[in-house]
């Protein structure tokens, strides 16, 4: 955490009392960035809020866009597809994140273990590849790998004697395939964050523990775990936010299909807004997603960035 890295923040301005208290100067430095972010972040959001109270269909550009009160929100509240998409997103989250953390922890421990530094460097650098891959391209790779006829996934299954699986054409399997691609892409992130936590454990303490016990698990549980908890919190919160935003991988891999089997909430809202063209309802959905995100962001700040 960055709390320790603010040299001289408190009590320093004694030398120059007015220098860092100048509101005008601070304003001048901050104004351009704040104005830009307000223009492209806040203003459109307010516009979306306004649209969420209107009937607004892009496919009928000549129609009036009257205010309809809370109609759009009522539509959303009674729309099983929206709740389905939200539930699916939640399912995706609880499926994928525990696996990513567990695998990430194993990887982090292997990378933290002394010895074999050459191979460790190789493994650590290879983790950059999934992270650097554009999520859209990851989805395309997934679509190739999980192809029923010529995909490698089925070739590997055939090698161990299992029959060809209909991956992307089957509702459950498509969900699993998208989850597997997400696990490929984001496990390295979890591993690197957890590794950063592991390196916080003072070497002497770890050495002493190694002399005390032979059990790897005991060391993880009682020595390293306290240092890993902040990392786990960060992972949980960022992964939650990312899965609420998740669009690219799903779009290129399955387009949300078959049926709505992999239609996560952002994909669903995109469909309502740009393929059904119902901007009013889509805006109401987006605003509800925004509220959910803000609640989570509050948690984020509360548990992760406690300083400043």
């Amino acid at each position, binding site marked *: 955490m960055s709390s320790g890295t603010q040299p001289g*923040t408190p009590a320093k301005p004694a030398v120059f009392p007015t220098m860092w208290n100048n509101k005008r*100067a601070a304003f001048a430095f*901050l104004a351009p960035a704040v104005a830009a972010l307000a223009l*492209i972040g806040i203003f459109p959001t307010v516009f979306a809020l306004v649209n969420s109270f209107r009937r607004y269909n892009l496919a009928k550009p000549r129609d009036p866009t009257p205010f309809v009160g809370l109609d759009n929100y009522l539509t959303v509240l009674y729309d099983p597809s929206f709740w389905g998409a939200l539930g699916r997103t939640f399912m995706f989250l609880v499926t994928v994140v525990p696996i990513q953390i567990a695998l990430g922890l194993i990887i982090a421990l292997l990378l933290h273990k002394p010895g074999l530094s050459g191979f460790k460097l190789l493994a650590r650098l290879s983790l950059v590849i999934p992270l650097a891959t554009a999520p859209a391209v990851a989805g395309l790779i997934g679509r190739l790998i999980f192809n029923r006829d010529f995909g490698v996934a089925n070739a590997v299954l055939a090698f161990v004697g299992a029959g060809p699986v209909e991956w992307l054409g089957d509702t459950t399997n498509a969900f699993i395939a998208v989850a597997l691609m997400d696990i490929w892409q984001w496990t390295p992130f979890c591993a690197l964050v957890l590794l950063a936590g592991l390196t916080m454990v003072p070497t002497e303490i770890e050495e002493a523990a190694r002399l005390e016990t032979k059990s790897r698990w005991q060391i993880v549980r009682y020595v390293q775990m306290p240092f890993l908890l902040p990392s786990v919190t960060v992972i949980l919160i960022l992964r939650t936010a990312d899965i609420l*935003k998740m669009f690219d991988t799903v779009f290129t891999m399955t387009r949300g299909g078959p049926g709505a089997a992999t239609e996560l909430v952002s994909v669903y809202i995109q469909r309502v807004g740009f393929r059904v063209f119902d901007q009013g309802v889509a805006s109401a959905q987006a605003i509800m997603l925004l509220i959910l995100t803000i609640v989570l962001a509050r948690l984020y700040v509360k548990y992760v960035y406690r300083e400043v």
Partner: protein
Amino acid sequence: MAVASAENTAVRQASAPAKPKRLVNAWHLVGLLAIFLFAVFPFYWMVATSLKTQAEALASPPIWVFTPNLDNYYSVLFNRDVLSSLINSVIIAVSTTVLAVGLGTPAAYALARFEFKSKEELWFWFITNRMLSPIVVALPIFIMARTLNLIDTHLVLVLVYLTFNLPIVVWICTDQFRGVPRDLDEAARLAGASRFTIFWRIALPLAMPGVAVSAIFSFIFSWNELLYALVLTRNTARTAPVAATSFMSGYDLPWGEIMATGTLIVLPVIVFALIVSKHLVQGLTMGAVK
């Protein structure tokens, strides 16, 4: 990170009993190779497919040994017009990064240095932008851009990408500026330098490592982005990820060409990501973990 543990290796190996050590090392090695395979395989498969002919790409069971050829790259770049999409991506990613750094570094400097009242709220606001789902902004931006005739222009994406680039620049650079000693600024102030001169001539050059890292992140995120590009561009400003998805119609998909486009998108990013690999975690967690 790894250096510290590497130094201790020799000591530990000397003190540990020899026989089980070798077995443990073997498992360690298997584990590390498994990590490598897990991380690299899908990428390898993409590159391999991009070097196959259509018949080889669609072979069942998949072909592992083949004569690589670059035909897919040629046809994608010159017949499918992926080249102009890549150029669009470069123009957009570079412009938005320059803009984000230009707007973000002064803000970061102010957040690191100045004391003012609603600093915490401002900072919270920057965080929320990192969490914001693009779809929330994409809906209204589309209508606004259509009204202003900005659909299918570079400008609209350059501006919209600031929603995630500006926060990342502000966050990484705020941390960096905090590491630059205040005494330098104060000394320059005593010598009569203006606040902007202090920022521009003293603080910014010293914060360059952070600025460079945040610029690379900003470039990567913009280069990889799909949702906004899909919604806001058609042909003239189409970015590379949109071009890659545009092949996905019809029954017989040109897998070699799709994977060639994918490789062209991913390869430069891997180079950049390796450059910042030490700061990868910091950038991806917005400084929550270092």
